[in-house]
C-alpha cells in the first residue's frame, strides 16, 4: 500500500470513529459555528460603529475573515496529529510510529481528521458567500482558482506551523503553547487586511511567517483592489506559493528533529 492510500485508510477509520456519536457531533459542530459566529458579530458591530476601517469596507474585510476561517479550519482538522504530538512524546508512543516502515508524517497526519471543525468552516463559508455577493464580485476561472490556491497555501502554512510546534517537542518534551500565538493568533490577525497593522508586525507576517502571502495579497487580486502597499499584480497571483514552500521547509526541520529524538522511556 502506498503512502497516500495508507493515509486515506487511516482517516477513513478516524471519520467512522467520530461519527459513532452523531448527536454529540452535530450539537458540538453547531455550537462551534455559533461561537465563531459571535466573534463575527463583534466585527459587524465595530464596522457599524466606525463606518469603515482605514479605507476598507465591511464586505472587503469580510472576504479576509471568511477565507481565513475556512483555511484555518481545514488546517486544524488535518494537522490534529501534529497538534497533539506533545502528548505522544510524553507517553513514549512515538517509538511505535518509528518502528513502522512508513513515513512519520503520514502516520501522524493519519492520526485524526477532526470533523468537528466543520462548524467553523461553515461559518467562514457563509461569511465569504455573503461578502462576495455584497461586493458584486465578478468571478473568473482565474480568480476562483486563485482563491482555492490561497486556501490550500494557507492550510499548508498553518500545518507547517503545527509541524514546527511538534518539532519543538523533541527538545522540550511538551508541546509548547507559545505556538498558539502564531496559529490561533495568526488566524486572528488575518481576519483583517494587513495594512492596518504596524509595519514591523506586517513585515514579520510577510517575510518570516508568510501569512499575508496566503491571505492578503491573493485577496487583492480576487477583489480587484490595487495594493495600498504597492505590491505588483503578478506578485499577488504568485504569493500563495509561499505557503507550500513554508510547509516543505518545516518538513525538513521535522526530519532533522526526528533524528534528534530520544524516547522518554515511559
Amino acid at each position, binding site marked *: 500500500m502506498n503512502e497516500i492510500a495508507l493515509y486515506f485508510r487511516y482517516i477513513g477509520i478516524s471519520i467512522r470513529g467520530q461519527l459513532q456519536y452523531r448527536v454529540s457531533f452535530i*450539537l458540538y459542530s453547531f455550537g462551534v459555528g455559533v*461561537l465563531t459566529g459571535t466573534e463575527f458579530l463583534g466585527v459587524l458591530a465595530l464596522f*457599524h460603529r466606525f463606518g469603515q476601517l482605514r479605507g476598507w469596507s465591511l464586505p472587503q474585510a469580510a472576504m479576509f475573515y471568511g477565507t481565513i476561517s475556512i483555511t484555518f479550519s481545514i488546517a486544524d482538522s488535518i494537522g490534529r496529529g501534529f497538534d497533539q504530538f506533545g502528548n505522544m512524546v510524553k507517553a513514549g508512543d512515538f517509538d511505535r510510529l518509528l518502528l513502522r516502515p512508513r513515513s512519520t508524517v503520514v502516520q501522524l497526519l493519519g492520526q485524526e481528521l477532526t470533523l468537528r471543525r466543520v462548524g467553523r468552516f461553515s461559518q467562514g463559508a457563509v461569511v465569504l458567500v455573503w461578502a462576495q455577493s455584497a461586493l458584486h464580485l465578478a468571478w473568473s476561472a482565474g480568480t476562483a482558482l486563485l482563491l482555492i490556491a490561497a486556501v490550500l497555501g494557507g492550510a499548508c502554512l498553518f500545518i507547517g506551523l503545527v509541524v514546527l510546534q511538534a518539532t519543538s517537542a523533541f527538545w522540550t518534551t511538551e508541546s509548547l*503553547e507559545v505556538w498558539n500565538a502564531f496559529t*490561533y493568533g495568526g488566524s*486572528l490577525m488575518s481576519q483583517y487586511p494587513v495594512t*492596518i497593522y504596524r509595519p514591523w508586525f506586517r513585515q514579520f507576517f510577510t517575510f518570516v511567517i508568510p501569512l499575508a502571502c496566503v491571505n492578503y495579497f491573493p485577496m487583492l487580486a480576487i477583489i480587484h483592489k490595487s495594493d495600498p502597499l504597492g505590491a505588483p499584480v503578478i506578485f499577488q497571483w504568485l504569493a500563495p506559493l509561499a505557503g507550500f514552500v513554508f510547509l516543505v521547509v518545516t518538513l525538513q526541520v521535522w526530519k532533522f528533529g526526528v533524528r534528534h529524538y530520544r524516547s522518554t522511556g515511559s
Partner: protein
Amino acid sequence: MRRMKPYLAIFNARFRMMLQYRAAAIAGLWTQIFFGLVMIMVYEAFYRSTDKPQPMSFPQVVSYVWLGQALLALLPWNADSEVKSMVRSGAVAYELCRPIDLYNLWFVRAMAWRTAPTILRALPMTILAMFVLPLIGLGEWRLHPPTLTGGIAFACAMICALLLSCALSTLMNISLMWTVSADGIIVMLTALVTLLSGMIIPLALFPDWAQPVLRALPFAGLVDLPYRVYLGNIAPSGLPAVMLRQLLWTAVLVLLGRWLLARGMKRIVVQGG
C-alpha cells in the same frame, strides 16, 4: 463557622492544585499578549478611521483589552472537566454520599478553579502591560493604572464578578447531568457569555439600539461593568448599583441552579458501576 469548614478545605485543596499549572500559565501568557497586541492594533485602525466621538476613548479601550487578557480565566467558559468525567464514569454517585450540600460543593470548587489560574496570569500580565510596554516604546498601548478609589471600587466589583462567574460555571456543571454529551450546549453558553459579557468587544461599542438589552442581561456584570469601574467610565459612586446588579443576578442564577440540580437528582441514572 463550623459549617464552613469543609468548604474552606475544598477551596484550599483545589486552589493549591490549580496553582501547580504554573508553566502552562506562563506559556499562555505569550499567546495572550499576542492576542492583546493584535486587538489593540485593530482598534487603533478603527479609531483612526473616524472623527466621530465614541462612547469610549482609544486609551480606555486599550486598558479594557489588557484587563480582558489578564482576567480571561475568570470567565465561565467551560464546565469542570473533573465533574464531566465523574458524570460520565458514574463516580458522581460518590459526590452524593458526601455529608455536604452538592451545590455548595460545586460552587466552591468553581471558585478555586476560577481564581487560581486568574491570579497566575493576571499578575505578570499587569506588570507587562502596565510597566514593560512603555519601556519598549509602546506607551500608547499600555494599561493605564486606575485611580486609588477606582482601583478599590474595581476590586469590589471583581469579587462580585467572581461570584456571578461561579454561579454560571456551576450551572454549566449541572447541565452535564441532563445529557452525557453536553459539549454542544456548553459551547453555545460560552458563545453567549463571551459576546454578551463584553469580552469580544466592549459593550459600549455595540449599536445603541442593543444597549438596553445588553444592560438588562446578567453577563455585563462579568466583564463590562467591572472594567468600566476600573476605567472611571463608571464613577466610584456608581459602584453600589453595579454590585447590586451583579449580586441580584448571582442570587437568581444560584436559585435556578439549585432548582435544576434538585430536579436532576430525581432522575439521575448512574452510568456504569
